[in-house]
């Protein structure tokens, strides 16, 4: 049995007296598309922030490719091969689309201030590689036409795609997508579905948080359902859809 790509063990996060996440366990196997689902306030984005290192756990542990992530800062976690997008889109607004993705290439490049200042051969070589690789990611998400535009001039849906391209530039083993579909139109969501499958097809494991139940049921291999910070169900879409507790949690919000 292979070591799972991501292991979340008894994860807890408290803010003062409030337990946002309480004893959550799950595993993500390499190659899967795993979805974390739940009503508002269930703790989904908190879990994401814990995994990506933006927040520190109060208890429990997170393991990625065998490394314990608990005490690592976010930039170290990215270096290990875990990348994320943000629910409230965080593109670098004053940089071009291409430059945004090139920043994603930071972990795969090395030249420093001195080499940059004096335009050493190593700097020029790496710079060329960074540019080419970044452009490839833009082609993958379909934004290559906008490469030289300012990121803040993109539409919301395009900015979401830009974030994905930027995260892909880090060559992640695991990609965390935080509500990638929210605010997208139906055709945009269909495009997103295709893109996610294509990314997985290229060997990247996907963990996503999403609200839209029909979107989730289509794309997920496995689902974890949270309510009030606790895991209430886990399994395939079919298993989860018919789980009594899941239906109860969503009663009054949406029907599947």
């Amino acid at each position, binding site marked *: 049995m292979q070591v799972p790509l991501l292991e979340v063990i008894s994860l807890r996060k408290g803010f003062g007296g409030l337990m946002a996440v309480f004893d959550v366990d799950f595993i993500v196997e390499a190659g899967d598309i795993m979805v974390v689902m739940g009503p508002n306030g269930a703790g989904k984005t908190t879990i994401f922030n814990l995994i*990506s290192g*933006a927040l520190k756990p109060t208890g429990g542990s997170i393991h990625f490719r065998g490394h314990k992530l608990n005490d690592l*800062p*976010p*930039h170290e976690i*990215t*270096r290990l091969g875990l*990348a*994320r997008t*943000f629910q409230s889109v*965080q*593109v*670098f*607004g*004053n*940089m071009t689309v*291409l*430059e945004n993705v*090139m*920043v*994603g*290439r*930071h*972990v795969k*490049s090395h*030249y*420093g*201030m001195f080499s*940059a*200042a*004096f*335009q050493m051969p190593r*700097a*020029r070589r*790496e*710079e*060329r590689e*960074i*540019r*080419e690789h970044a*452009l*490839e990611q833009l*082609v*993958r*998400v*379909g934004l*290559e*036409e906008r*490469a*030289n*535009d*300012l990121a*803040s*001039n993109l539409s919301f849906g395009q900015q979401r795609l830009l974030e994905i391209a*930027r*995260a892909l530039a*880090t060559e992640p083993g695991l990609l965390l997508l935080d509500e990638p579909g929210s605010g997208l139109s139906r055709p945009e969501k269909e*495009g997103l579905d295709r*893109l996610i499958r*294509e990314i997985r097809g290229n060997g990247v494991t996907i963990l996503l948080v999403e609200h839209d139940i029909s979107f989730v049921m289509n794309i997920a291999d496995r689902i974890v359902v949270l309510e009030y910070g606790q895991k209430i169900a886990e399994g395939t879409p079919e298993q989860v859809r018919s789980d009594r507790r899941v239906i109860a949690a969503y009663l009054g919000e949406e029907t599947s």
Partner: protein
Amino acid sequence: MGETQQSHTHVKYAGWLPGRHALGIIAFAVLLIVLGLVETMRPFGIRFSDLTSGIVTMDTMVRAGILTIAVVGLNLLMGYTGQASLGQAGFYGLGAYASAILTVKLRVLALPAWLGTVWWWPWLVILAAMIFVGAFAYLVGKPILQLRGHYLAMATLGLGIVIYIVLRENFGFSPSEFNLTGGLDGIPDVGRLAIGGFTLWPIERYYFLVWAIALAVIVLSLNIVNSRVGRALRAVRDSEVAANAMGVDTHTEKLKVFVLSAMYASLAGSLYAHFQAAVSPKPFDFLGSIELVLMSVIGGIASIWGAALGVAVVLVLKELIRTRMHLIIPGAGGEQEVIAFGILIVVIMIFMPDGLSVGGVRFVRNLFGKPVHSA
């Protein structure tokens, strides 16, 4: 998503001199050389200062070059990482005093006196001062760069004031026992720089030195800004949380720029000491830092070229007001000059809040009917 040829998208590539800036740099260098030659050779007996009715003299141009170096550092720090710095004059002062003390106060420091006679010693001092100030900035920056926004601004403000007071108060020593900084009077008789037997004085020669160094600083800084380092810095400015998520160690990057910025200021300070042939604490107080920030902001905080522009505008404005104001308002004195200066600054900031480099470009483009994408 479809396959699209990569050659479809015009990818701007940075060559030896940063891409599209190469033309600007060469043009600027030519301009500087021409100005310098006019002053030096005085064709038809005319000097550049005659052409500007005495407002822009050689003295102003040398000052501009020195200040540009310090302000480029400030732009890198404030414009590209979004960190406030109200203490840049402190590092500027450290560089100036280091150069003055280590060339004039050799006996006080128990250093061999012959060092004061060799031409290369002051250059070594300049380099050593940059390294020392850089190290100092590293030690101080490590803790204070964990602060954000106003708190960071206050910390840098405090730092600048502490440096000023230490210099002014001779490190707390009694001047009769151990006169290191000269207290309020400062240090006179700082020598001129020379290369081999060639003294870099009178002022025309020093002008070429200062601007050669300033241009080098501009080119190196442009190279940094257009590199992966520069992108990481701008990412920190635009969204520190996303920059971290993309693998940028934001704390270390901010610290690196803080150190680099301090080293630029130190270099500028050393050049200032050898220009004034003396140092005193006054230019390095809080107001000195404010003036540097002013030049940075007027020119355009996130622009390397903006540094030179901001310096030029502020120096020229001050000279204009000082020499011409009494023509508009008879009997106007120093206080009125300060008010006038302040009003002009406010007006510029109202109409061009991004600074003249950005606002100026936008203005010219609008003139030619080219709509500009909002930044």
